[in-house]
């Protein structure tokens, strides 16, 4: 039985995980100091990129027989990809861990709990924007009805400790908005990838995104029928589901005469910018994906290009000198290499002092649905993060991705800091400066 299962995994690793990609790793260990789970586990090689790659290889070669300890090492990977820029050998770790998760899913009978989470998350919520909207309506109802208060009192969420803090941090949803297609003098034509979470839970941020871009002279259109980018599915080894979403989006954005396709969620942006990797090179979809990828840009970079800094510098100077800090979105930083722009924007804001937090480049522990599946490690990482936040004495933590934003809000709740510290999306913070003054 054990033998048979081990062979099933080995075979699946042979089929799904690219051997040449594994061989790229020469085990120098340069990735170790960049890996949040390596650090948080007290330097456990098993929880490092080098260790995980060695495990992938060992399973594939039959050097070890599959057991739950190996599965756990892969499950505990955040997928933050901080190891990639740290790797001189150019190992494509992100692809390897996705292939591995695909291999594991293929070989494994998923546990009941995980199946339910995956089913609800991937087949329903993230697969379809309409369902997402319905779900969010339910959340709205739940919040408005006072059930939220009640649930908190009764302790219903004690059953799910990580959801409990998350639940406290769900933003109060604004009322539904008018479809936002506006026209301004076009300095650039921009198609807006709204993002499923951003469009529902954070739709105010989306409205602010459009307004800021319009103020900077962009013409912004938001193509209908766009779907969730597919990142969460892809990162969890649900490649087929991810591809389905990618195809929908390639259709929705097809033949659009725009200069940029902008997004305001770091995680989505990274996945969108690698759509071409999902398809075989000679495929028509690959060609379309290439075109789509070439136009991708994140909101910080686009605001920067369109001259947001000049606008911010025109604002009257202010007395207040509160401290603000920035938490990198892992994928925005590690995949798209956007490090400078958000910081430059925040530094040019008057009336607040930008202070770099130590380890801003390390994952906050949100990592898609990681904080739901691996609450223990996620909270360890979050506690270290909040410790660093507090050292900066910042009263505003700025992020550029909805997952990070929710996680930072959860961190503020965990540390009982909600009366003094808040977490805000970069777009909203800039909007506050420019529009609300």
């Amino acid at each position, binding site marked *: 039985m054990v033998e048979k299962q081990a062979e099933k995994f080995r075979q699946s690793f042979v089929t799904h995980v690219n051997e*040449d990609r594994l*061989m*790229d*790793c*020469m*085990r*120098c*260990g*340069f990735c*170790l*100091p960049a890996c949040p789970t390596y650090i948080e586990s*007290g*330097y*456990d*090689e*098993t929880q*490092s990129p080098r*260790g995980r790659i*060695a*495990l992938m290889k*060992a399973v594939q070669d039959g*050097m*070890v*027989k599959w*057991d739950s*300890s*190996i599965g*756990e*090492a892969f499950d505990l990977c955040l997928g933050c990809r901080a190891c990639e820029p740290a*790797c*001189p*050998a*150019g190992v494509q770790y992100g692809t390897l861990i996705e292939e591995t998760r695909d291999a594991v899913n293929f070989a494994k009978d998923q546990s009941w709990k995980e199946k339910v989470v995956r089913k609800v998350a991937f087949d329903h919520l993230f697969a379809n924007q309409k369902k997402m909207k319905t779900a969010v309506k339910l959340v709205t109802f739940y919040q408005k009805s006072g059930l939220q208060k009640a649930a908190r009192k009764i302790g219903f969420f004690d059953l799910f400790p990580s959801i409990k803090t998350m639940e406290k941090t769900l933003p109060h949803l604004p009322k539904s908005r008018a479809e936002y297609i506006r026209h301004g003098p076009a300095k650039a034509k921009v198609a807006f990838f709204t993002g499923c979470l951003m469009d529902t839970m954070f739709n105010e941020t989306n409205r602010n995104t459009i307004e800021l871009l319009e103020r900077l002279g962009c013409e912004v259109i938001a193509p209908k029928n766009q779907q969730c980018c597919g990142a969460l599915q892809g990162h969890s080894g649900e490649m087929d589901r991810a591809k389905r979403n990618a195809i929908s989006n390639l259709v929705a954005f097809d033949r659009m005469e725009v200069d940029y396709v902008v997004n305001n969620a770091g995680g989505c942006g990274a996945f969108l910018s690698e759509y071409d990797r999902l398809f075989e090179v000679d495929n028509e979809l690959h060609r379309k994906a290439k075109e789509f990828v070439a136009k991708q840009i994140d909101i910080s970079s686009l605001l920067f290009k369109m001259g947001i800094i000049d606008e911010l510098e025109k604002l009257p100077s202010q007395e207040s000198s509160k401290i603000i800090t920035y938490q990198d979105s892992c994928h925005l930083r590690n995949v798209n290499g956007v490090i400078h722009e958000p910081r430059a924007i925040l530094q040019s804001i008057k009336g607040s002092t930008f202070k770099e937090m130590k380890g801003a480049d390390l994952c906050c522990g949100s990592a898609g649905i990681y904080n739901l599946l691996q609450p223990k490690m996620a909270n360890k990482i979050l506690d270290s993060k909040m410790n660093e936040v507090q050292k900066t004495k910042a009263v505003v933590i700025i992020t550029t991705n909805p997952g990070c934003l929710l996680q930072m809000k959860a961190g503020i709740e965990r540390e009982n800091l909600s009366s003094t510290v808040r977490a805000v999306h970069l777009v909203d913070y800039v909007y506050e400066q420019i529009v609300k003054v």
Partner: protein
Amino acid sequence: MDEHVKEQLIAVTGIDFAKTTTAQKLSYSYDATAGFQAMPDLILSPASINEVQAIVKICGEHRVPIVSRGSGTNLAAGTTPTSGGVVLLFNRMSDIVELDEENLTMTVQPGVITQEINDRALEVGLFYPPDPSSMKISTIGGNVAENSGGLRGLKYGVTRDYVKGLKIVLPSGELLSTGGKLTKDVAGYDLTSLYVGSEGTLGVIVEITLGLLPAPKTKQTMLVFYDKLAEAAETVSAIIAAKIVPATLEFMDKGTIETVEDYMNIGLPKDCEAMLLIEQDGEPVVVAGDMEKIGMLCKENGAATIQFAQSVEEAERLGTARRVALSALARKRPTTILEDATVPRSEIANMVTAIQGIAKKYDLLICTFGHAGDGNLHPTILTDVRDAEEMARVELAFEEIFHYAIELGGTITGEHGVGEMKSPYLEWRIGEAGISTMKAIKSAIDPLNIMNPGKMFAKETKKRIVVKNG
């Protein structure tokens, strides 16, 4: 390993600090050396010298091998658990114990990351010079056990030159203290020196007292590019002959420059044949004078371009570019095997030429970089471990490189250590008397051979190859 012994060992640290799963054992089965891997039976993280002593005693009683491991960046298969047994980790013994500004020493536990020692010293205007390329990852315990070198070796020497005292748990479990903060101390044999570079074969290093220097006031960095490899090598000899000792004098060949540029994107010209990275530190006036003279020597020896770093950040980037060379080379082929052959400085040009010839002879891709100023080169063969025929040629090529290095008055390893990988060649360098003396020391201190067995001494020495002339 006997289950009962395992339980006893785990009881020392407690189960929370013992690693026993398949995944964990596999993760401690390798280091940074291609082609070497072996599974340990158990991985332990002791918290104190007492715990290390208890573990060593149990292992002695039951003949269980002990492999001390830092961060596993070893390049000679020195930390692979070749005969199974216990891997000892120092992640819980990773404190800086004391920084003594009056005696210019720092006392540390073995698990401290090398970079941290550097940073802490600099905070108070002091300087710990050894800077192996892996310093952001490697531990000081590993550096001491391997007597690691680095980019500043030319002017400042290697780890050995800064180790003033050690605490060692002997294979018997007894605690040995050697040396200390004294500048002068000739009481008996120099056991500190014996343990530096002993590769974990004579005991477990549990505390280290390091000597520090006042930090140099300033540093300047220049990059020099050449159209001919030989001209770069000749420049190195010319600089040394002019009685200038730069802090750093590093060399990279064309292949290395290409891959480093692919990773770093810092504008290194991919069409040049060789590059030197030269640094000088010290008093501003002296540094300026030296750099000017070095610049002249570079030009006289045919340098195509000379470029000065304009800022501290730029200098740092250039240093990083050199440090990532080995890993960046892994981009070229699936397997990266590097060597550490070292020759007298005056022979650098001959050695570089010999390596080129050997690459051609065996039809292999060899890229070379290294610490040219101290004669320590890293010829790196880019190959594929899955191709048996090519691997056979790789082995021949390395043997020939070792052979040449020794002919030129050099050694088989300058700074990476012998480990398992180079043990069959050790006798080439130190001779029969060398081997028997070392074996006598080993069996006197570790009669049961529980300390990192299978390293340093090979079952059989490789036969010296006969290289035909011409």
